[in-house]
């Protein structure tokens, strides 16, 4: 059985200026460097959304793509769902090349978009029935399936409702039903819980778990650490279109840098504290950026006392102190140098 997903050296460079409204959240800007200066007119700025991404997802996995806004998550999903043309590299879904045979790929996937995009001219159940028809499924087969899906997603009493009468969470569940109506092998979800209230988010988690239980491959993007940790069997941390780490959530947590992340906001420049703090063996990787100071410590209590003492000596006052125990979050910060949200 071929891998559910396989990408090799996947690259996507958007020409400048970017097209608007494609749901591509701020991929980072690459200024023209020396090697490209001959190709790119002066002042033009390309956007490198994917920069040599290698991924492999086995059938039946619940795979998470974790990264901050603009990391390349949505572009990755876009390539795998045939909606974004890769600039270089290859991508295959269920063993089918996305460029050579996009129709074959579309036949095997279901997609839940970042923002619900139901057909607003239709009722909830018509959305499902017409979508099934686009996959060549006759009404006799799609009607019982649609009714069962609406029941399963707790939309049973909203079947005949116009889409605009559904709440945000209900629309998101309708998108999941739509993605499942043609029984795809692989389900893609792009930030499926953004904009949902906590209750709806937990319900969605249950639905996703049961879908994986049925043997489906699920690929989900998220920038919620907890969501990735709870749901995914494996996680890829990506940033700037590159793969930074790939492992199970537990495996990634084990790789998190030792100790608790201690962050302190001071009432003035943090740099004067550095000389003293660097002599303290309990602290590692100390950085000062403006009024922000951060360091990793095995024993957070002891570290805080040292930081406060150093601050007093330097004539600074700590305004705020935050502690983050070793987690995906601290791993992420140590890998990317920035926070998820």
């Amino acid at each position, binding site marked *: 059985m071929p891998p559910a997903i396989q990408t090799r050296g996947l690259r996507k460079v958007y020409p400048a200026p970017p097209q*608007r409204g494609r749901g*591509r959240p701020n991929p980072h800007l690459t200024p023209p460097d020396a090697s490209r200066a001959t190709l790119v007119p002066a002042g033009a700025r390309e956007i490198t959304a994917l920069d040599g991404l290698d991924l492999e997802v086995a059938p039946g996995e619940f795979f998470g793509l974790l990264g901050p806004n603009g990391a390349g998550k949505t572009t990755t999903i876009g390539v795998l769902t*045939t*909606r974004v043309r890769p600039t270089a590299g290859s991508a295959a879904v269920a063993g089918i090349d996305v460029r050579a045979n996009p129709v074959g790929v579309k036949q095997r996937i279901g997609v839940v978009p970042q923002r619900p995009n139901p*057909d607003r001219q239709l009722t909830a159940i*018509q*959305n499902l029935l*017409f979508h099934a*028809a686009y996959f060549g499924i006759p009404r006799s087969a799609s009607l019982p399936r649609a009714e069962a899906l609406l029941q399963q997603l707790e939309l049973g009493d909203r079947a005949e409702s116009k889409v605009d009468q559904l709440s945000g969470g209900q629309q998101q569940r309708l998108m999941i039903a739509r993605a499942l109506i043609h029984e795809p092998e692989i389900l893609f979800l792009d930030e499926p819980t953004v904009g949902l209230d906590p209750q709806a988010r937990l319900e969605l988690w249950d639905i996703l778990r049961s879908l994986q239980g049925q043997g489906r491959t699920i690929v989900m993007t998220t920038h919620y650490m907890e969501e990735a940790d709870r749901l995914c069997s494996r996680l890829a941390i990506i940033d700037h279109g590159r793969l930074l780490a790939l492992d199970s959530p537990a495996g990634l947590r084990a790789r998190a840098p030792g100790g608790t992340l201690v962050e302190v906001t001071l009432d003035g420049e943090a740099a004067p504290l550095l000389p003293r703090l660097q002599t303290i063996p309990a602290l590692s990787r100390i950085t000062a950026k403006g009024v922000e100071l951060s360091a990793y410590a095995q024993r957070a209590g002891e570290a805080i006392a040292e930081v406060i003492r150093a601050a007093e000596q330097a004539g600074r006052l700590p305004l705020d102190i935050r502690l983050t125990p070793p987690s995906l979050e601290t791993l992420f910060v140590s890998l990317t140098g920035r926070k998820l949200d």
Partner: protein
Amino acid sequence: MSPSPWTVFGALVRRDLHVVSRELPFFLLRTTLQPIMFTIVFGFLLPKMGFVQRGYTGALLPGILGVSLAFASVQAVALPMVADFGWTKEIEDRLLAPVPIWVIAIEKVLSGTAQGMIAALFVLPVARLIMGPIEALTASHLGLIVGMTFLGAFAFSAFGMLLGTAIKGEQIGLMFGLIVAPMIFFGCAYYPWRALAATPVIQILVLVNPLVYVSEGMRGVLTPALPHMPVGVVAGALVVISAVFLFLGLRTFDKRAVS
């Protein structure tokens, strides 16, 4: 196993039929009100006042039909395209259908063609009622009438595909002001092309306007006794125009659908 493109195409058509049939009264109101008002003023009031000659209605009626079907066809495709790609993203569920992208675009163009023809079919009896009897009007070439209406509607539907996918949402008002309005006024809808011989420069310039061929084509099939461009020339021009707009429209559609 993928369904055949025809099966998917059929499903897309059923979806549009379902949606359009519910929206039809609003659609007709939106697209035909302007030509009908024009008919009232120029086909009824002005002749009654004696400002225009008696025979004018014979030249006006086919032109009014041309405007109706062109305007309706452009709108039927351009407006949903602008909205779908601009903000609602509703078309994405169809872009996920297991068919090549162009199948979806062609279906939209054909659906727009049908809507344009419906608009013309609606305006014809209304305009005829308002204007009163028109001597030269004949329905004896029904096949030709249907064929010409189809060609005109298809050309403008393909034009709508190009406009709707090449133009940004916030420029839609500009598009109707700068492109569609001049097209209607210089489209030989309200006067026959041959009469423009009075101003030879304008007579040549308007030949770039696709609406000229629709108006003249409608004259050729509805009032063949009155002056008009040869039907064969008009049909040939509309086929070429359709091919160009369709080619460009499919390209811009593809660019919007796959980035």
